[in-house]
């Protein structure tokens, strides 16, 4: 049997099990069933298997499931409102911190310009004193170690 034939057979069987065969599909399946006792047996077994599985379906999570769900929803709502309150607080603190940082940076830059110091933009923004390797060495006191 070719792959296409097998595919069509399977397709028709499943459509028959779903009960959604068109008139043309019914006619084709009837021919196939007439020709093949094996296919008839397969269809019968598939129906049996489906009925067996259907009869064993579990349809419930047990008593008071809906109450358990509602209780989880209420507690997750409470957690959500706590998280929202934290987020609200954090946003305000973050805005205040940004305003403070911008103000300090502006102050540092303007005071450096007023003093006429020539520094890199980063040093000016952070208000860092001028530090170079030679200045560091010059400030070292070697007398204690001698």
């Amino acid at each position, binding site marked *: 049997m070719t792959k296409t034939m097998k*595919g069509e057979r*399977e*397709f028709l069987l*499943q*459509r028959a099990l*779903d*009960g*959604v065969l068109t008139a043309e599909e019914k006619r084709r399946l009837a021919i196939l069933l007439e020709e093949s006792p094996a296919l008839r047996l397969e269809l019968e*077994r*598939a129906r*049996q*298997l*489906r009925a*067996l*599985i*259907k*009869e*064993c*379906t*579990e*349809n*419930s*999570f*047990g008593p008071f*499931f*809906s*109450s*358990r*769900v*509602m209780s*989880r*929803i209420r507690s*997750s709502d409470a957690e959500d409102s706590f998280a929202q309150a934290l987020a609200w607080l954090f946003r305000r603190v973050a805005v205040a911190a940004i305003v403070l940082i911008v103000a300090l940076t502006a102050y540092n830059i303007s005071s450096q310009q007023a003093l006429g110091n020539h520094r890199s933009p980063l040093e000016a923004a952070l208000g860092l004193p001028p530090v170079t390797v030679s200045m560091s060495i010059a400030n070292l006191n070697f007398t204690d170690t001698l």
Partner: protein
Amino acid sequence: MGIHHPSNSSNQCSPNDSDESDAELLARARQGDEAAFKRLVERYESVVASTAIGMLGKGDDAEEVGQETFIRFYQSLRRFRAESRVGTYLTRIAINLSLDELRRRKKRKLRFWIWEEREALPDELVVSDEQEIEANERKDFVRRAIQSLDGKHRAVVVLRMLNGYSTQETAALLGIPIGTVLSRLSRAQEKLRHLLSPLMNE
């Protein structure tokens, strides 16, 4: 592809099981009416339970997936529009969460080499002719047989055979081609027929 909730499934609520339609309950739930949402949970518990328990077996994992499914639905109430029906929407969430849980189980097992405490899955179901299989035992056998399938085959079996979705709807729910649904179903059925042959009239 439009998906309609299967009408032939016993899991589905009938339109007459409540005075209020889904749309009315959804509208009230969106306005914060807890009782309306609880009614929706009660109405669709069976749809979600058959999916989650079918995928994960009865137990804490399935219950967790069931609860999480409704919590996500609650969180998306305002975004939810009626393009897909409530049952289909919930099934999609439940099947995805169940597949995630199966992936987590697999990772846990690979990482720690822990054999999870659960019943061994049957290679073959042995039942003597004289033995009468009780309804609960039958359920248990079938459940264990389904659990022995790997996740992707199990998902197809659960959606097609337990929930009663059509091949097209199953393909749309899982985001796979129809041909893949058919081939997975065929392979899964073959294995299930072998495992459950003692329960079937040959």
